[in-house]
Each structure stands twice: as C-alpha cells, then as structure tokens.
C-alpha cells in the first residue's frame, strides 16, 4: 500500500488539519457543555436538551455542516487567492455554521442548506472545470460530505401519517441524491481526463501547467502522476532525446503489427481503439529498464480496418520501483489506479471518489511511460496524444489490418 496521502494539494492541508483537530476539540467542547448541564447551568441544559431532541438525521447533518464550515473557514489559510475568493470561503463557512445552529435549535434549515450545498458543489466543479484548480482529495472529500448533508436535508422524515407530499417527495429526494453523486463524480472525472491530457503537452513543451498538478502527486480517477520538478537541464534533454531516437530506430521494424506479434508481443485489452497495447511478457521481467531494444509494450492505433504504430511504453517490473526520469521533468512516469473486476474478468478506472464496482479489487501496477515515435504535438514524451491527431495519422499512414 502506498501513496495514502497522495492527491492532497498543499493549499488544502490547513483545511484538512483543521478538520482533524476539530474532531477532538468538538468532543471536548461537547463534554464541557454536558458537564455544565449536569451542574444545572441553564443554557447548557437547554442546548443538551435541544440536541437530544433532534432526530439522528439532523444530528448527522449538523456534523456534516460543521465539517464543511471548518473546511471553508480554514481554506484561506492555504489558498492565497483573491480577496473576493477569501470572502466567499469565509462567508460560506459562516453560513454553514449558522445553518447548523438553526438545525440544532429546531428552526427552518433544510431549504437554505440544500440550496447552499448545491451552489457550493456546482461552484467547486465549475472552478475545477475551468482549470482554476485541480480536484484534490480534500476537495473531493468535502464534496462527499456536502452530498451526504444534501441527502440528509432533502430526505423528508418518515412520519406515522403518510401524506401525498411525503410519498412524492421521498423518491424525488432520493433520485436527486443519486444523480448528484453520479453527476459530480462524472464531471470531476472528465476534468481529470482533460488535465491528464494537458499535463503531457505542458510538461513536454516546458511551458508548465501551474495548477496543483506540478507539485501534487495525483491519485485521482485512475491516474497517479509523480510530481514534476523544475525544467529539464540540457543534459537531461539530450538524454531524453537519445532514448527517443534509439527507440524509434529499434521499433521501426514493428510498423507491421504482425512482425510484433511474431516477436512475442500480444494484444491486451480492447481489440479496437486509438491506443492498443501489445505487450511482450518476456520483456516484463527481463531486468532491463528503459531499454530501447526491448520495450515492454508497443502502442498502436487501430480501428476501421487500419492500424498504425504510435510508439512504445516502458514499464517498471515492480510498483515499488521508480522509473528513471532520464529527461527530468520532461519524462514523468505515471501509473494507474485500476479496478480489476472478477465477474467477468476485466479492468476499469477507479472513480474520483475512490470506488470500484462491487466485487472488484483495486490494483496499482508498476510505473510506466509512453514514448511516441510519430512526432506528435508536445514531443515524443508527451503523456497523451490528441484523438483527432491520431485519427488523422491513422487515415494517412495506417496499414491494412
């Protein structure tokens, strides 16, 4: 097991620490109030009675509201953003705390909480979607907390007397919660995929993408990307270019995929697509690392009866070994956090909320790196190729399959 703390943006550490510290502090404060209540202090007794009279759903919602309030109030400690953003964080944090107090006091809180929760989740996903920041573990965990509170405040209480309003409202609230979870996760996923593509281009071109990804070891949505360092030195650039050139020469003979198959490479995964991986198991554990004469995998694009060699993929034999970054930050190794399903056997990507389908195992293989030998935009070490560009290449240079 590794990378337990991966995917937490440095900006968000203060918020996480505040929540972790908040748990014992809240427990201590609760005990102090209860002790005063036992001694007959009126306000403490009233507060304890109010708390005890609240249904468990409300108490859970209050706990969730306090967590998200603490996160929002603590975010400006790490986020050195604009004064407006700071004010919004503080304002929403105070609003959540006020709503929690309203809920404890038995006043109206559900509608305002639901609206504020939806607004917060939409705003967060919009910021993430526009590239304002990368969805990290603290952001996603807070979103989960907010979704839980949303579900608890939307859910009408089951009452002995069933009214038509309750009968209709319950399925509606349930559907809203399920859709909110799936949609928020799908949006975060799409954004991860987009940023994963961008990273390759920016890292390779040297321009750099200055969201969290440059210094954050990501562990979201199936991709674990090692943190980048500063720009590569001239020596590193030369070394990377040398490996790229030698690989291009070495795998040139595999333009026809049948030659690769005859040499021991076999197709794994989908039979059609813009990235087909032909792996040579004999090279997987041969002790040779980043050897242009024996790349572990060849990558082809193949669909509609045509196929073209895109390049190679080098892979480390064990997950506890780091790949040699010969080109510094221009050669960033990555791995995948994948779901291995048993019924039927197959692979999937771990969701942004860290889940796999029921019955699937989460596995992380050894680090890997792509080396494209077809002069793509972004250079040979770019992480991901633009699909339109690959389709165009396949149409122009693809061989009959």
């Amino acid at each position, binding site marked *: 097991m590794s990378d337990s703390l991966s995917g937490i943006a440095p900006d968000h550490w203060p918020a996480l620490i505040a929540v972790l510290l908040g748990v014992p502090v809240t427990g201590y404060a609760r005990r102090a109030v209860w002790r005063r209540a036992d001694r007959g202090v009126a306000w403490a007794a009233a507060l304890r009675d109010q708390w005890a009279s609240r249904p468990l759903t409300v108490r859970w919602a209050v706990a969730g509201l306090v967590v998200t309030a603490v996160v929002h109030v603590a975010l400006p400690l790490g986020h050195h953003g604009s004064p407006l953003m700071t004010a919004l964080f503080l304002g929403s944090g105070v609003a959540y705390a006020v709503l929690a107090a309203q809920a404890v006091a038995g006043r109206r809180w559900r509608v305002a909480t639901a609206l504020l929760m939806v607004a917060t989740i939409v705003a967060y996903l919009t910021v993430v979607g526009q590239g304002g920041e990368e969805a990290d573990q603290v952001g996603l965990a807070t979103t989960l907390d907010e979704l839980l509170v949303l579900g608890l405040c939307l859910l009408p209480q089951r009452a002995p007397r069933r009214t038509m309003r309750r009968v209709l409202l319950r399925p509606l609230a349930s559907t809203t919660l399920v859709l909110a979870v799936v949609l928020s996760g799908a949006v975060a996923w799409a954004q991860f995929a987009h940023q994963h593509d961008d990273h390759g281009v920016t890292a390779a071109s040297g321009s750099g993408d200055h969201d969290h990804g440059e210094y954050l070891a990501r562990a979201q949505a199936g991709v674990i990307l090692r943190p980048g360092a500063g720009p590569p030195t001239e020596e590193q650039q030369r070394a990377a270019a040398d490996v790229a050139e030698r690989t291009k020469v070495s795998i040139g003979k595999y333009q026809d995929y049948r030659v690769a198959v005859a040499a021991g490479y076999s197709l794994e995964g989908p039979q059609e697509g813009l990235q087909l991986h032909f792996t040579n198991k004999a090279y997987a554990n041969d002790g040779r690392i980043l050897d242009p004469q024996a790349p572990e995998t060849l990558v082809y694009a193949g669909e509609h009866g045509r196929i073209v060699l895109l390049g190679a993929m080098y892979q480390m034999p064990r997950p506890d070994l780091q790949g040699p970054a010969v080109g510094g930050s221009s050669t960033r190794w990555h791995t995948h956090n994948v779901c291995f399903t048993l019924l039927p056997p197959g692979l999937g990507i*771990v969701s942004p909320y860290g889940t796999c389908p029921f019955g699937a195992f989460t596995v992380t293989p050894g680090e890997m790196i792509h080396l494209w030998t077809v002069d793509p935009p972004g250079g040979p070490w770019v992480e991901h190729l633009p699909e339109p560009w690959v389709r165009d290449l396949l149409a122009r240079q693809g061989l009959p399959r």
Partner: protein
Amino acid sequence: MSELTQPTVVQPPVAVPVPGGRADVAYVLLLGQAALGMLASLGVLLLMAGNPVYLVAPLLHATLLFVLASFVARRRRWAWWGVVVLEALSLAGFALNLLIGLLPQVDMTLNLVGLLTQVGLPAALLWQCVHLLAEGKRT
C-alpha cells in the same frame, strides 16, 4: 409510608418508529453507496470498450442496495441483517485488497476519499444496522 405500600410501576419502553432515526441515516448512506457503485461502473465501461456485460454485476449490486435502503427505512429486520452481511463483505473485501497489495507484482493505492468510501461508509452502515438490530431486540 404510602410509597412503600404502593410501589411505582415502571412502564417498559414502547417500540415506536423513530422519525429521522438510524434507519433514515442508513437509507441515505445506502443510496450514496449505490450511486458510488454506479459511478464506478462507468470506469469499467470506459476501459472495456463499452461492453455492457460489465454492467450486470454493478447494476445488480446497486439494485440490491436500493431495495435494502427502501426496506431498511421501513424497519424490516431482514433488511438490516442484509446490510450487515453486505457491509461486512465490503470490509472483508477491502482487507483482502490490502493483502493483495502486499504482493510484489502489484500495489494498492489508498487515498483520503478511498478511505472514506471503502472503509468509512461501510463501517458507518454496519454500525447503524447493528444498532438498529440491537435496539429492535431490546424493545
């Protein structure tokens, strides 16, 4: 003196459904778990070229969770037992996954949200339903 001759009778607690109680918390958590499973199934579809065979198990699991959620909220004991078994299996699966991660060929990456959804959520559900069963037995 009269207190001695006329002892006070303590009424046994009456079993009444508690609005907004544990059962409703478990209901919301089960809906969330079902939704998380459905989201995860999209990740398998993506890698397995949209093959719908891979949707069967996740959809069956999500349906089971929806059914259990519905009956948990209606305070059916069998549904509470069902959740206890299912969540115990989930936690056992997580423990097994940790062991698999010790193999030299593969690793297991665990992060904050993974801990919340793979450990926190099943544990919370297990806790709620065990308490519901215990409270049901007492009353």
